[in-house]
Protein backbone atom coordinates (compact mmCIF):
# COMPACT_ATOMS: atom_id res chain seq x y z
CA UNK A 1 0.00 0.00 0.00
CA UNK A 2 1.67 3.16 -1.18
CA UNK A 3 5.21 4.22 -0.50
CA UNK A 4 7.03 4.34 2.79
CA UNK A 5 9.10 1.95 4.84
CA UNK A 6 7.16 -1.12 6.01
CA UNK A 7 7.09 -1.36 9.76
CA UNK A 8 7.04 -4.43 11.93
CA UNK A 9 4.05 -4.71 14.25
CA UNK A 10 4.82 -2.68 17.33
CA UNK A 11 3.74 -3.58 20.85
CA UNK A 12 1.64 -1.00 22.64
CA UNK A 13 2.06 1.67 23.66
CA UNK A 14 4.02 3.19 20.82
CA UNK A 15 4.90 6.65 19.68
CA UNK A 16 5.98 7.39 16.14
CA UNK A 17 7.35 10.56 14.61
CA UNK A 18 7.87 10.87 10.90
CA UNK A 19 8.87 13.78 8.72
CA UNK A 20 6.93 13.95 5.47
CA UNK A 21 7.83 15.90 2.38
CA UNK A 22 6.00 16.96 -0.80
CA UNK A 23 7.30 13.76 -2.42
CA UNK A 24 5.13 11.80 0.04
CA UNK A 25 1.95 13.41 -1.30
CA UNK A 26 -0.55 10.91 -2.69
CA UNK A 27 0.94 8.00 -0.82
CA UNK A 28 0.15 6.03 2.28
CA UNK A 29 1.93 3.84 4.75
CA UNK A 30 0.89 1.32 7.34
CA UNK A 31 1.59 1.30 11.04
CA UNK A 32 0.81 -2.23 12.23
CA UNK A 33 0.60 -2.82 15.96
CA UNK A 34 -0.01 -5.80 18.12
CA UNK A 35 -2.44 -5.91 21.02
CA UNK A 36 -1.57 -8.82 23.30
CA UNK A 37 -4.65 -8.62 25.52
CA UNK A 38 -8.18 -7.40 25.09
CA UNK A 39 -8.65 -3.86 26.37
CA UNK A 40 -11.44 -1.44 27.16
CA UNK A 41 -10.33 1.11 24.62
CA UNK A 42 -7.62 2.35 22.34
CA UNK A 43 -6.54 5.95 22.47
CA UNK A 44 -4.95 7.37 19.34
CA UNK A 45 -3.25 10.73 19.37
CA UNK A 46 -2.42 12.16 15.99
CA UNK A 47 -1.01 15.48 14.94
CA UNK A 48 1.01 17.12 12.21
CA UNK A 49 2.59 20.49 11.75
CA UNK A 50 2.59 22.85 10.10
CA UNK A 51 -0.97 22.75 8.86
CA UNK A 52 -0.91 25.78 6.63
CA UNK A 53 1.46 26.55 3.79
CA UNK A 54 2.50 30.12 4.41
CA UNK A 55 4.25 30.97 1.12
CA UNK A 56 1.60 33.17 -0.44
CA UNK A 57 3.31 33.72 -3.77
CA UNK A 58 3.96 30.02 -4.29
CA UNK A 59 0.42 29.23 -3.13
CA UNK A 60 -1.07 31.48 -5.77
CA UNK A 61 1.15 29.88 -8.39
CA UNK A 62 -0.02 26.41 -7.34
CA UNK A 63 -3.66 27.49 -7.31
CA UNK A 64 -3.32 28.88 -10.83
CA UNK A 65 -1.68 25.64 -12.01
CA UNK A 66 -4.43 23.60 -10.36
CA UNK A 67 -7.18 25.64 -11.99
CA UNK A 68 -5.42 25.27 -15.34
CA UNK A 69 -5.29 21.51 -14.92
CA UNK A 70 -8.99 21.43 -14.18
CA UNK A 71 -9.76 23.32 -17.38
CA UNK A 72 -10.65 26.63 -15.82
CA UNK A 73 -11.17 29.48 -18.25
CA UNK A 74 -8.13 31.71 -17.68
CA UNK A 75 -9.85 34.74 -19.14
CA UNK A 76 -12.01 35.12 -16.06
CA UNK A 77 -15.02 35.43 -18.33
CA UNK A 78 -16.93 32.79 -16.39
CA UNK A 79 -20.05 33.92 -14.60
CA UNK A 80 -18.67 32.41 -11.41
CA UNK A 81 -14.93 32.57 -12.00
CA UNK A 82 -12.85 30.95 -9.25
CA UNK A 83 -11.02 33.57 -7.22
CA UNK A 84 -7.49 32.30 -6.51
CA UNK A 85 -7.34 34.22 -3.26
CA UNK A 86 -10.40 32.40 -1.99
CA UNK A 87 -8.48 29.12 -1.89
CA UNK A 88 -5.82 30.41 0.50
CA UNK A 89 -4.35 29.38 2.77
CA UNK A 90 -3.43 26.07 1.18
CA UNK A 91 -2.75 23.35 3.69
CA UNK A 92 -1.28 19.94 4.26
CA UNK A 93 -3.72 17.07 4.66
CA UNK A 94 -3.05 13.74 6.32
CA UNK A 95 -5.78 11.31 7.45
CA UNK A 96 -5.79 8.16 9.55
CA UNK A 97 -7.77 4.99 9.05
CA UNK A 98 -7.88 1.89 11.23
CA UNK A 99 -8.56 -1.80 10.84
CA UNK A 100 -8.17 -4.98 12.84
CA UNK A 101 -7.59 -8.43 11.39
CA UNK A 102 -9.05 -7.28 8.08
CA UNK A 103 -12.12 -5.52 9.52
CA UNK A 104 -12.29 -1.86 8.56
CA UNK A 105 -13.10 0.24 11.60
CA UNK A 106 -13.11 3.70 10.13
CA UNK A 107 -11.31 6.86 9.31
CA UNK A 108 -10.91 10.37 10.63
CA UNK A 109 -11.25 12.35 7.45
CA UNK A 110 -11.16 15.87 8.77
CA UNK A 111 -8.86 18.80 8.53
CA UNK A 112 -7.90 19.30 12.17
CA UNK A 113 -4.13 18.92 12.52
CA UNK A 114 -4.49 17.76 16.13
CA UNK A 115 -6.77 14.80 16.73
CA UNK A 116 -7.57 12.44 19.58
CA UNK A 117 -9.60 9.31 18.98
CA UNK A 118 -11.06 6.67 21.26
CA UNK A 119 -12.02 3.24 20.04
CA UNK A 120 -14.06 0.85 22.17
CA UNK A 121 -17.41 -0.56 23.12
CA UNK A 122 -18.11 2.38 25.40
CA UNK A 123 -18.23 4.53 22.30
CA UNK A 124 -15.80 5.39 19.55
CA UNK A 125 -14.90 8.80 18.23
CA UNK A 126 -16.81 10.00 15.16
CA UNK A 127 -15.55 8.26 12.06
CA UNK A 128 -14.85 4.95 13.82
CA UNK A 129 -17.16 2.03 14.51
CA UNK A 130 -17.95 1.12 18.06
CA UNK A 131 -16.14 -2.19 18.36
CA UNK A 132 -14.55 -4.29 21.10
CA UNK A 133 -10.84 -3.77 21.49
CA UNK A 134 -9.69 -7.33 21.02
CA UNK A 135 -6.23 -8.75 21.09
CA UNK A 136 -4.73 -9.23 17.68
CA UNK A 137 -3.06 -7.46 14.83
CA UNK A 138 -4.27 -3.94 14.27
CA UNK A 139 -3.24 -1.47 11.62
CA UNK A 140 -3.29 2.26 11.20
CA UNK A 141 -3.01 3.50 7.65
CA UNK A 142 -1.68 7.02 7.24
CA UNK A 143 -2.97 8.58 4.02
CA UNK A 144 -0.69 11.42 3.04
CA UNK A 145 -2.97 13.32 0.71
CA UNK A 146 -1.01 16.50 0.26
CA UNK A 147 2.20 17.92 1.71
CA UNK A 148 3.22 21.40 0.60
CA UNK A 149 5.83 22.39 3.16
CA UNK A 150 9.39 21.08 2.74
CA UNK A 151 8.94 19.18 5.99
CA UNK A 152 5.71 18.30 7.75
CA UNK A 153 6.24 16.47 11.02
CA UNK A 154 3.65 13.86 11.92
CA UNK A 155 3.26 12.30 15.35
CA UNK A 156 1.04 9.38 16.24
CA UNK A 157 0.70 7.39 19.42
CA UNK A 158 -1.53 4.48 20.36
CA UNK A 159 -2.26 3.42 23.91
CA UNK A 160 -4.51 0.59 25.13
CA UNK A 161 -6.44 1.38 28.30
CA UNK A 162 -8.11 -1.05 30.68
CA UNK A 163 -6.26 -4.17 29.64
CA UNK A 164 -8.20 -7.28 30.54
CA UNK A 165 -6.79 -10.45 32.01
CA UNK A 166 -6.21 -13.23 29.54
CA UNK A 167 -8.96 -15.81 29.68
Amino acid at each position, binding site marked *: *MGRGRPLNPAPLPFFLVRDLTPQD*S*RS*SFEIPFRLDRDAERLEISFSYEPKE*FADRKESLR*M*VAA*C*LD*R*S*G*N*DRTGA*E*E*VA*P*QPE*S*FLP*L*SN*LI*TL*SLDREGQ*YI*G*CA*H*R*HDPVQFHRIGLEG*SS*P*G*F*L*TVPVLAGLWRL*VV*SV*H*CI*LNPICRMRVSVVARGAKESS
Partner: protein
Amino acid sequence: MSDPEYAFPVRAGSDELRYLPCELHCHSQHSDGHWTVSELLRAGAGEGLSLLALTDHNTFSGIAELTPALQAETIPAIPGIEWTTDYGHLLVLAAARDVDWRTANLRNIDEKLAEIRSAGGLCGIAHPFRPGDPICCGCTFEFEVGRFDLVDFIEVWSGPFPPARSECRRALAWWSGLLDRGYHIAATHGRDWHGRSPGAGGALQACTYLGFSNGIPTVAGALDALRGGRTVVSLGPLATFVLERDADGAVARIGDRVDWSGVRAPALSCTVTVSGGWPKPEGGSGHGADMPSGGESDMRAESVAILGRGGRVVWESALEKDAGTGVPASAAGRFSTDSPYLRLELRGTCAGTLRTLALSSPVWIGKP
Protein backbone atom coordinates in the same frame (compact mmCIF):
# COMPACT_ATOMS: atom_id res chain seq x y z
CA MET B 1 -21.50 -2.59 7.39
CA SER B 2 -25.01 -2.38 8.75
CA ASP B 3 -27.90 -3.96 6.97
CA PRO B 4 -29.02 -1.44 4.37
CA GLU B 5 -32.66 -2.43 4.72
CA TYR B 6 -34.68 -0.24 7.02
CA ALA B 7 -38.22 -0.11 8.17
CA PHE B 8 -40.21 2.97 7.30
CA PRO B 9 -43.62 4.22 8.21
CA VAL B 10 -46.17 2.59 6.02
CA ARG B 11 -47.86 5.07 3.77
CA ALA B 12 -50.46 4.51 1.16
CA GLY B 13 -48.66 3.60 -2.03
CA SER B 14 -49.84 3.61 -5.59
CA ASP B 15 -48.73 2.47 -8.98
CA GLU B 16 -48.08 6.06 -9.91
CA LEU B 17 -44.53 7.11 -10.67
CA ARG B 18 -43.65 10.18 -8.64
CA TYR B 19 -40.50 12.28 -8.81
CA LEU B 20 -39.39 13.57 -5.41
CA PRO B 21 -36.48 15.86 -4.46
CA CYS B 22 -33.49 14.08 -2.90
CA GLU B 23 -29.89 14.82 -1.98
CA LEU B 24 -27.40 12.02 -2.61
CA HIS B 25 -24.17 13.52 -1.26
CA CYS B 26 -24.10 14.50 2.43
CA HIS B 27 -21.56 14.60 5.24
CA SER B 28 -21.91 14.51 9.00
CA GLN B 29 -19.59 14.87 11.97
CA HIS B 30 -18.38 11.36 11.22
CA SER B 31 -16.13 13.03 8.66
CA ASP B 32 -15.88 16.77 8.06
CA GLY B 33 -19.55 17.72 8.15
CA HIS B 34 -20.94 20.27 10.57
CA TRP B 35 -24.00 18.38 11.71
CA THR B 36 -24.69 15.19 13.59
CA VAL B 37 -26.51 12.56 11.57
CA SER B 38 -29.72 13.48 13.32
CA GLU B 39 -29.27 17.17 12.57
CA LEU B 40 -28.52 16.38 8.94
CA LEU B 41 -31.71 14.39 8.47
CA ARG B 42 -33.74 17.06 10.24
CA ALA B 43 -32.20 19.71 8.02
CA GLY B 44 -33.03 17.63 4.95
CA ALA B 45 -36.62 17.22 6.05
CA GLY B 46 -36.78 20.92 6.87
CA GLU B 47 -35.72 21.79 3.35
CA GLY B 48 -38.46 19.69 1.84
CA LEU B 49 -36.21 16.89 0.66
CA SER B 50 -37.81 13.46 0.53
CA LEU B 51 -34.65 11.38 1.01
CA LEU B 52 -30.92 11.79 1.33
CA ALA B 53 -27.79 9.65 1.25
CA LEU B 54 -25.27 9.72 4.09
CA THR B 55 -21.89 9.64 2.35
CA ASP B 56 -19.23 10.50 4.89
CA HIS B 57 -15.63 10.50 3.71
CA ASN B 58 -14.12 7.03 4.00
CA THR B 59 -16.30 5.89 6.86
CA PHE B 60 -19.66 4.31 7.48
CA SER B 61 -19.60 4.79 11.23
CA GLY B 62 -22.51 7.22 10.98
CA ILE B 63 -24.82 4.63 9.47
CA ALA B 64 -25.57 3.16 12.90
CA GLU B 65 -27.29 6.44 13.70
CA LEU B 66 -29.72 6.08 10.79
CA THR B 67 -32.16 4.37 13.06
CA PRO B 68 -35.65 3.45 11.90
CA ALA B 69 -37.02 5.83 14.53
CA LEU B 70 -34.97 8.77 13.25
CA GLN B 71 -35.88 8.08 9.64
CA ALA B 72 -39.54 7.69 10.53
CA GLU B 73 -39.41 11.08 12.23
CA THR B 74 -37.49 12.78 9.43
CA ILE B 75 -36.75 11.30 6.01
CA PRO B 76 -35.27 8.01 4.82
CA ALA B 77 -31.54 7.92 4.17
CA ILE B 78 -29.44 5.67 1.98
CA PRO B 79 -26.41 4.31 3.84
CA GLY B 80 -23.31 5.21 1.88
CA ILE B 81 -19.73 6.32 1.92
CA GLU B 82 -17.69 8.69 -0.19
CA TRP B 83 -14.45 7.09 -1.24
CA THR B 84 -12.10 10.01 -0.83
CA THR B 85 -8.98 8.94 -2.65
CA ASP B 86 -6.11 10.79 -4.23
CA TYR B 87 -7.44 9.99 -7.71
CA GLY B 88 -11.07 10.91 -7.39
CA HIS B 89 -14.10 10.67 -5.16
CA LEU B 90 -16.70 7.94 -5.55
CA LEU B 91 -20.08 7.70 -3.90
CA VAL B 92 -20.76 4.11 -2.87
CA LEU B 93 -24.35 3.54 -1.84
CA ALA B 94 -25.87 0.62 0.04
CA ALA B 95 -22.99 -1.82 -0.36
CA ALA B 96 -23.58 -4.84 1.86
CA ARG B 97 -19.90 -5.11 2.76
CA ASP B 98 -16.84 -2.93 2.92
CA VAL B 99 -14.66 -2.62 -0.15
CA ASP B 100 -11.29 -1.14 0.76
CA TRP B 101 -10.88 2.32 -0.75
CA ARG B 102 -7.24 2.50 0.35
CA THR B 103 -6.02 0.00 -2.23
CA ALA B 104 -7.69 1.76 -5.17
CA ASN B 105 -5.28 3.23 -7.66
CA LEU B 106 -5.45 4.76 -11.10
CA ARG B 107 -5.39 1.42 -12.90
CA ASN B 108 -7.23 -1.06 -10.69
CA ILE B 109 -10.40 0.97 -10.42
CA ASP B 110 -12.39 -1.40 -12.64
CA GLU B 111 -11.72 -4.23 -10.19
CA LYS B 112 -12.89 -2.02 -7.36
CA LEU B 113 -16.05 -1.03 -9.22
CA ALA B 114 -16.75 -4.72 -9.83
CA GLU B 115 -16.23 -5.44 -6.13
CA ILE B 116 -18.70 -2.72 -5.21
CA ARG B 117 -21.21 -4.07 -7.70
CA SER B 118 -20.81 -7.61 -6.36
CA ALA B 119 -21.41 -6.25 -2.85
CA GLY B 120 -24.75 -4.96 -4.07
CA GLY B 121 -23.61 -1.35 -3.99
CA LEU B 122 -24.21 1.45 -6.42
CA CYS B 123 -21.34 3.57 -7.56
CA GLY B 124 -21.41 7.22 -8.58
CA ILE B 125 -18.67 9.60 -9.64
CA ALA B 126 -18.64 12.73 -7.51
CA HIS B 127 -17.80 16.22 -8.84
CA PRO B 128 -15.54 14.88 -11.64
CA PHE B 129 -14.15 18.24 -12.72
CA ARG B 130 -13.73 19.99 -9.39
CA PRO B 131 -10.24 21.46 -9.04
CA GLY B 132 -8.01 18.93 -7.27
CA ASP B 133 -4.71 19.07 -5.36
CA PRO B 134 -3.78 21.22 -3.60
CA ILE B 135 -7.10 23.10 -3.60
CA CYS B 136 -9.28 20.07 -2.91
CA CYS B 137 -7.34 16.85 -2.42
CA GLY B 138 -8.28 14.16 -4.93
CA CYS B 139 -11.39 16.04 -6.02
CA THR B 140 -10.69 15.84 -9.77
CA PHE B 141 -11.66 12.42 -11.13
CA GLU B 142 -8.54 10.83 -12.60
CA PHE B 143 -9.25 7.11 -12.26
CA GLU B 144 -8.73 5.27 -15.55
CA VAL B 145 -12.15 3.68 -15.76
CA GLY B 146 -12.64 1.21 -18.57
CA ARG B 147 -15.83 -0.39 -17.28
CA PHE B 148 -18.22 2.54 -17.29
CA ASP B 149 -20.98 -0.07 -17.33
CA LEU B 150 -20.16 -0.42 -13.61
CA VAL B 151 -20.84 3.27 -12.95
CA ASP B 152 -24.44 3.86 -11.95
CA PHE B 153 -24.50 7.64 -11.83
CA ILE B 154 -22.40 10.74 -12.34
CA GLU B 155 -22.75 14.09 -10.65
CA VAL B 156 -23.29 16.17 -13.77
CA TRP B 157 -24.03 18.99 -11.39
CA SER B 158 -22.42 19.57 -8.00
CA GLY B 159 -22.08 22.31 -5.45
CA PRO B 160 -24.02 25.57 -5.37
CA PHE B 161 -25.71 27.05 -8.45
CA PRO B 162 -24.37 24.42 -10.88
CA PRO B 163 -25.41 25.95 -14.21
CA ALA B 164 -23.31 29.03 -13.46
CA ARG B 165 -20.10 27.05 -12.99
CA SER B 166 -17.82 25.72 -15.69
CA GLU B 167 -16.88 22.54 -13.80
CA CYS B 168 -20.51 21.47 -14.07
CA ARG B 169 -20.67 22.26 -17.78
CA ARG B 170 -17.60 20.08 -18.30
CA ALA B 171 -19.15 17.29 -16.25
CA LEU B 172 -22.33 17.50 -18.29
CA ALA B 173 -20.38 17.30 -21.56
CA TRP B 174 -18.38 14.31 -20.27
CA TRP B 175 -21.55 12.47 -19.25
CA SER B 176 -23.13 13.24 -22.59
CA GLY B 177 -20.09 11.70 -24.30
CA LEU B 178 -20.49 8.55 -22.22
CA LEU B 179 -24.14 8.34 -23.25
CA ASP B 180 -22.96 8.57 -26.86
CA ARG B 181 -20.84 5.49 -26.16
CA GLY B 182 -23.93 3.67 -24.97
CA TYR B 183 -23.40 3.71 -21.21
CA HIS B 184 -26.59 3.80 -19.17
CA ILE B 185 -25.49 6.22 -16.49
CA ALA B 186 -27.95 8.32 -14.53
CA ALA B 187 -27.39 12.04 -14.06
CA THR B 188 -27.39 13.32 -10.49
CA HIS B 189 -26.67 16.50 -8.60
CA GLY B 190 -24.42 16.40 -5.54
CA ARG B 191 -24.76 19.28 -3.16
CA ASP B 192 -21.82 17.84 -1.22
CA TRP B 193 -23.66 19.02 1.83
CA HIS B 194 -21.40 19.69 4.79
CA GLY B 195 -23.95 21.66 6.77
CA ARG B 196 -23.91 25.25 7.72
CA SER B 197 -20.73 27.10 6.97
CA PRO B 198 -19.93 30.75 7.55
CA GLY B 199 -19.77 32.67 4.34
CA ALA B 200 -21.71 30.18 2.26
CA GLY B 201 -24.49 32.70 1.95
CA GLY B 202 -27.72 31.96 0.22
CA ALA B 203 -26.37 30.44 -2.98
CA LEU B 204 -29.10 28.72 -4.90
CA GLN B 205 -28.98 24.95 -4.48
CA ALA B 206 -30.06 22.17 -6.76
CA CYS B 207 -31.43 18.71 -6.04
CA THR B 208 -31.85 15.34 -7.70
CA TYR B 209 -35.41 14.24 -8.32
CA LEU B 210 -35.68 10.48 -8.14
CA GLY B 211 -38.59 8.71 -9.80
CA PHE B 212 -40.17 6.45 -7.19
CA SER B 213 -42.20 3.83 -9.00
CA ASN B 214 -44.87 3.58 -6.31
CA GLY B 215 -44.75 7.20 -5.30
CA ILE B 216 -43.20 6.52 -1.87
CA PRO B 217 -39.68 7.67 -0.99
CA THR B 218 -37.82 4.65 0.35
CA VAL B 219 -34.20 3.57 0.25
CA ALA B 220 -35.06 0.61 -1.97
CA GLY B 221 -37.09 2.86 -4.23
CA ALA B 222 -34.25 5.37 -4.52
CA LEU B 223 -31.74 2.69 -5.44
CA ASP B 224 -34.19 1.33 -7.98
CA ALA B 225 -34.63 4.81 -9.46
CA LEU B 226 -30.87 5.28 -9.77
CA ARG B 227 -30.39 1.86 -11.35
CA GLY B 228 -33.28 2.58 -13.66
CA GLY B 229 -32.07 6.03 -14.67
CA ARG B 230 -35.19 7.81 -13.38
CA THR B 231 -33.50 11.04 -12.38
CA VAL B 232 -33.91 14.74 -13.04
CA VAL B 233 -31.44 17.29 -11.67
CA SER B 234 -32.84 20.73 -11.10
CA LEU B 235 -32.53 24.13 -9.53
CA GLY B 236 -36.14 23.74 -8.49
CA PRO B 237 -38.69 23.01 -11.22
CA LEU B 238 -39.47 19.41 -12.01
CA ALA B 239 -39.45 18.68 -15.73
CA THR B 240 -40.29 15.26 -17.15
CA PHE B 241 -41.22 13.98 -20.56
CA VAL B 242 -42.95 11.08 -22.24
CA LEU B 243 -42.32 9.78 -25.74
CA GLU B 244 -44.90 8.00 -27.81
CA ARG B 245 -44.10 6.17 -31.02
CA ASP B 246 -46.59 7.26 -33.61
CA ALA B 247 -46.63 3.90 -35.40
CA ASP B 248 -48.14 1.93 -32.56
CA GLY B 249 -48.64 4.22 -29.58
CA ALA B 250 -45.82 2.58 -27.57
CA VAL B 251 -44.72 4.82 -24.71
CA ALA B 252 -41.32 5.44 -23.10
CA ARG B 253 -40.41 7.56 -20.09
CA ILE B 254 -37.19 8.81 -18.50
CA GLY B 255 -34.91 5.84 -17.81
CA ASP B 256 -36.83 3.41 -19.99
CA ARG B 257 -34.83 1.25 -22.37
CA VAL B 258 -36.89 0.32 -25.40
CA ASP B 259 -35.71 -0.72 -28.81
CA TRP B 260 -37.38 1.35 -31.44
CA SER B 261 -34.45 0.99 -33.81
CA GLY B 262 -36.38 -1.28 -36.21
CA VAL B 263 -37.65 1.76 -37.99
CA ARG B 264 -35.07 4.31 -39.06
CA ALA B 265 -35.78 7.66 -37.52
CA PRO B 266 -39.12 6.74 -35.97
CA ALA B 267 -41.74 9.45 -35.76
CA LEU B 268 -42.33 10.36 -32.13
CA SER B 269 -44.69 12.50 -30.15
CA CYS B 270 -43.23 14.14 -27.08
CA THR B 271 -45.05 15.60 -24.10
CA VAL B 272 -43.16 17.63 -21.52
CA THR B 273 -44.58 18.52 -18.14
CA VAL B 274 -43.10 21.12 -15.79
CA SER B 275 -44.19 21.70 -12.22
CA GLY B 276 -43.05 24.01 -9.47
CA GLY B 277 -41.23 21.27 -7.61
CA TRP B 278 -38.76 21.72 -4.84
CA PRO B 279 -38.70 25.03 -2.98
CA LYS B 280 -35.47 26.99 -2.77
CA PRO B 281 -33.60 26.12 0.41
CA GLU B 282 -32.36 28.73 2.78
CA GLY B 283 -28.79 28.75 4.00
CA GLY B 284 -25.52 27.66 2.59
CA SER B 285 -23.92 24.60 1.13
CA GLY B 286 -20.72 24.35 3.07
CA HIS B 287 -18.80 25.66 0.11
CA GLY B 288 -18.59 29.39 0.49
CA ALA B 289 -18.44 31.27 -2.78
CA ASP B 290 -19.81 34.35 -4.36
CA MET B 291 -22.64 32.60 -6.07
CA PRO B 292 -25.66 34.19 -7.61
CA SER B 293 -28.63 33.74 -5.37
CA GLY B 294 -32.26 33.66 -6.17
CA GLY B 295 -35.52 32.04 -5.34
CA GLU B 296 -38.55 30.60 -6.96
CA SER B 297 -39.83 34.07 -7.65
CA ASP B 298 -36.66 34.81 -9.58
CA MET B 299 -36.85 31.65 -11.64
CA ARG B 300 -38.97 31.33 -14.74
CA ALA B 301 -39.05 28.27 -16.96
CA GLU B 302 -39.52 29.28 -20.58
CA SER B 303 -38.61 26.50 -22.99
CA VAL B 304 -37.64 22.89 -23.29
CA ALA B 305 -35.20 21.07 -25.54
CA ILE B 306 -34.88 17.39 -26.36
CA LEU B 307 -31.26 16.48 -26.98
CA GLY B 308 -29.79 13.40 -28.59
CA ARG B 309 -26.43 12.00 -29.55
CA GLY B 310 -23.62 14.52 -29.58
CA GLY B 311 -25.67 16.90 -27.46
CA ARG B 312 -27.57 17.94 -30.56
CA VAL B 313 -30.98 19.49 -30.12
CA VAL B 314 -33.58 17.26 -31.76
CA TRP B 315 -36.55 19.39 -30.88
CA GLU B 316 -37.25 22.47 -28.85
CA SER B 317 -40.31 24.42 -27.92
CA ALA B 318 -41.53 27.28 -25.81
CA LEU B 319 -43.60 26.19 -22.85
CA GLU B 320 -47.37 26.59 -22.98
CA LYS B 321 -48.93 28.38 -20.05
CA ASP B 322 -51.22 26.46 -17.76
CA ALA B 323 -54.74 27.72 -18.32
CA GLY B 324 -55.45 27.98 -14.60
CA THR B 325 -52.29 29.46 -13.17
CA GLY B 326 -50.81 31.19 -16.19
CA VAL B 327 -47.47 29.55 -15.38
CA PRO B 328 -45.49 27.98 -18.24
CA ALA B 329 -46.06 24.29 -17.63
CA SER B 330 -46.08 22.05 -20.68
CA ALA B 331 -45.02 21.51 -24.25
CA ALA B 332 -45.86 18.96 -26.90
CA GLY B 333 -44.61 18.24 -30.37
CA ARG B 334 -43.66 15.66 -32.95
CA PHE B 335 -40.28 14.84 -34.46
CA SER B 336 -38.20 11.95 -35.72
CA THR B 337 -34.68 11.01 -34.74
CA ASP B 338 -31.86 8.53 -35.31
CA SER B 339 -30.42 9.16 -31.87
CA PRO B 340 -30.40 6.07 -29.64
CA TYR B 341 -31.32 8.18 -26.66
CA LEU B 342 -33.13 11.39 -25.91
CA ARG B 343 -32.89 13.59 -22.84
CA LEU B 344 -34.59 16.75 -21.67
CA GLU B 345 -33.30 20.15 -20.73
CA LEU B 346 -35.50 22.83 -19.21
CA ARG B 347 -34.37 26.36 -19.91
CA GLY B 348 -35.38 29.67 -18.49
CA THR B 349 -34.23 32.68 -16.56
CA CYS B 350 -32.71 32.60 -13.11
CA ALA B 351 -30.70 35.30 -11.37
CA GLY B 352 -31.28 37.45 -14.41
CA THR B 353 -29.70 35.12 -16.95
CA LEU B 354 -31.04 32.57 -19.39
CA ARG B 355 -29.73 29.16 -18.37
CA THR B 356 -30.50 25.46 -17.95
CA LEU B 357 -32.79 25.04 -14.97
CA ALA B 358 -33.14 21.27 -15.05
CA LEU B 359 -32.09 18.26 -17.07
CA SER B 360 -33.08 14.63 -17.14
CA SER B 361 -31.44 11.28 -17.61
CA PRO B 362 -32.17 9.84 -21.03
CA VAL B 363 -34.83 7.64 -22.50
CA TRP B 364 -33.09 4.90 -24.49
CA ILE B 365 -34.95 4.18 -27.70
CA GLY B 366 -32.38 2.37 -29.82
CA LYS B 367 -29.03 0.67 -30.00
CA PRO B 368 -26.08 3.03 -29.61
